């Protein structure tokens, strides 16, 4: 049977969060790194990727940039208790204290120094200026509603994923969930609805089942449909976000924009 949900704690008692200054007792230990890799693979890789490089669900853990504190104690706390308000769940009933330190040892072994060369201030200018990004995306309460809210983007996505999303917005369009929890925003897939009267409404699917569809239209209004009452529903394997090729956005400008987006951590 698939390991889908919580694996309950074994013989060890629930770990208490050490203070931020606590050091990993297994730091650099080769066997701990090996064990941590195993633990990471079956507890963390579904979101952070097999080698912690990040996926569309969660950021890379190889860059040396830690959204919620990078000391041993802070990493321990993040793993054990999760991050409220994000997709990062608490692992306290899954990983023992020892296993948590093993995972941290493994992650430390992967670190490559972060080299985000871009100018975040210039990136912000592009974002709110010539990029017109705010017409569709919201950041900290300002902006449009058609695309995903980007307020916490830097904490949730890898820089490589951000760059790809700008150059090729349609590259990873799947909704990214198999379960109905709807804990991931599904604001990716373009849907075109032809109503019974022949009216065409284009937008992104906010939710859908076999019988109904709820979309955010290009007019940034909610449109709610019963599939039995419309003429046609067409799913397009293409994002409504336009691609930004090098002739529109130079490599340097892309770096700047990614540097800005990677710094978005939500409202203070």
């Amino acid at each position, binding site marked *: *049977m*698939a*390991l*889908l*949900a*919580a*694996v*309950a*704690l*074994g*013989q060890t008692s629930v770990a208490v969060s050490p203070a931020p200054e606590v050091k990993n007792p297994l730091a650099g230990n080769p066997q701990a790194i*090996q*064990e941590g*890799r*195993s633990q990471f*693979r*079956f507890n963390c*890789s*579904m979101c952070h*990727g*097999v080698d912690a490089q990040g*996926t*569309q669900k969660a950021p890379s853990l190889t860059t040396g940039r830690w959204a919620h504190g990078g000391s041993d104690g802070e990493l321990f706390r993040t793993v054990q208790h999760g991050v409220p308000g994000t997709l990062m769940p608490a692992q306290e009933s899954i990983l023992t204290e020892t296993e948590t330190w093993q995972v941290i040892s493994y992650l430390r072994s992967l670190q490559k120094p972060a080299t985000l060369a871009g100018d975040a201030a210039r990136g912000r200018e592009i974002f709110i200026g010539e990029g017109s990004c705010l017409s569709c995306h919201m950041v900290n309460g300002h902006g449009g509603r058609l695309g995903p809210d980007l307020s916490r983007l830097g904490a949730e996505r890898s820089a490589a994923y951000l760059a790809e999303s700008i150059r090729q917005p349609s590259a*990873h*369009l*799947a*909704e*990214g969930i*198999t*379960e*109905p929890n709807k804990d991931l925003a599904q604001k990716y*897939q373009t849907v075109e609805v032809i109503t019974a009267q022949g009216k065409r409404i284009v937008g992104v699917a906010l939710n*859908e*089942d*076999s*019988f109904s569809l709820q979309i955010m239209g290009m007019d940034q209004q909610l449109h709610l449909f019963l599939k039995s009452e419309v003429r046609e529903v067409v799913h397009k394997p293409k994002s409504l976000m336009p691609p930004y090729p090098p002739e529109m956005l130079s490599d340097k400008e892309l770096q700047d924009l990614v540097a800005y987006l990677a710094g978005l951590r939500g409202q203070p």
Partner: protein
Amino acid sequence: MKHKSLILVAVVAVALTAKAQVTYERLLKAPGAEPQNWLTFSGGYNGQRFSPLQQINTGNVQELAPQWIFQTGVMGKFEATPLVVDGVMYVTAQEDAAFALDARTGRPIWKYVRAVPEGVQPCCGHVNRGFAILGDKLFLATLDAHVVALDSRTGSVIWDVEAADYRQGYTFTVAPLAVKDKIIVGVSGGEYGVRGFIDAYDAGTGKRAWRFYTVPQPGEPGFDTWKGDGWKRGGAPAWVTGSYDPEMNLVYWATGNPSPSNYGGDRGGDNLFSNSVLALDADSGKLKWHFQFTPHDLHDWDATEVPVLLDAELNGKQRKLLLHANRNGFFYVLDRSDGKFLFAKPFARQTWAKGIGPDGRPELLPGGDPTPDGAKVCPGAIGATNFMSPSYSPQTGLFYVNVREQCDIFTTAPQVFHAGRAFLGSAYSMDADEKDWGALRALEPTTGEIKWEFRHHSAPWAGTLATAGGLVFAGDIEGNLIAFDAREGKVLWHFETGSALYASPITYSLNGRQYVAVASGQALVSFALPQGALEKKKSGR
């Protein structure tokens, strides 16, 4: 006068007592002899999950409406199949909570609460799939690997026996099967390197009558299919309820993945009796035959899908068949008298085998094994179907299965084994570039041909129910319970229950009114036709 009323009281008391006793003879004749009840996990020993009830039918199902909702108050996935006996519904829930309900009103009669220890380790949620009933006892297999008998009228514990040590990763989530005087259960724990087994307990005393280990020890038949010492933690759990053929006295019980599920380096060979269906003598537990669907599995493709028994003509010969829609994507038909492989055909997208050869073994395609960096294989680890029950309608001659269309990226790596800790040999992740979907498919069981399908928006986890009203019911992961025309697959009715469905529906009848019930979220929802519609029908209006 006084004397007369005493006699009357005695007669009534006898009648009630007789009703409360669910004898083996009643189970043998279910569901045909008493379609108003739902007496076993699959409705009857043949695993067909078909009800002869037909008050709710293709002509009126559009009027089906909820009559009552019972809230369990327990979080987690509600995967149970309720039993209904003479007006009382018995249902288990998450955390091994259990309830007796008035099946007409949903009002609770009693509640059983279990102190589940903190250290239990079910792989996939603190779930339970239902009771078995025999005599005046209900039987529950628990998360801490005990088997428990409850008094059906009070919920009091009659006996409680430990089958295995939950600290080592053993758990039960299965609905037991009552056969003659025995209660049969299969263990969970394929993610923890357990040694799988199927047990039978004496219903009266709780004494273990037999145990069949699904991983042989040195010297036992099948041991030569394990190279290396991997057999010591070989898995092969047995966590879905089997079927039973009383004529041959054989219990058909399916088994799950070898451990670790994604790494085979320490367990060369076919790894019997993982991913197999076993035919066990119901009295002794002795193995009569076995058939392995996925030898040396590296994809977590447990064969723990309900075996459906059917007597039918195949290639001009009347046969006793066993139908099995397997997690690996193939629909298998075996002769259940001797386990002979008859044919297999894909019922879902699969990329790992060219087909199943005449010997019943898969003809492997290159690129199907997990790799250190990940290889895409269809179906994914959850499989083309899973524990959700299929059904068969003698009325249409079709087999119904809720199918998952999803691929995974499978990785593999050696892993150090620690007893009682998850033991997977790396992991799998969803193929992020392809949206999962699903379908209810109707198969012609003697050819495997797909007669019709209804496409689900997402891959489902809910089972099916076929009825003599010309209907088949199935659930989806968005929470819809859907009624289809069983012949053609047309959607006739659907209802959003408000939570993903992880259970299979049942049907029963009380005071002339047919109900359809299904578990959803924390709720058990029971549907019927509105009273007004039934009265209209009675008066001919």
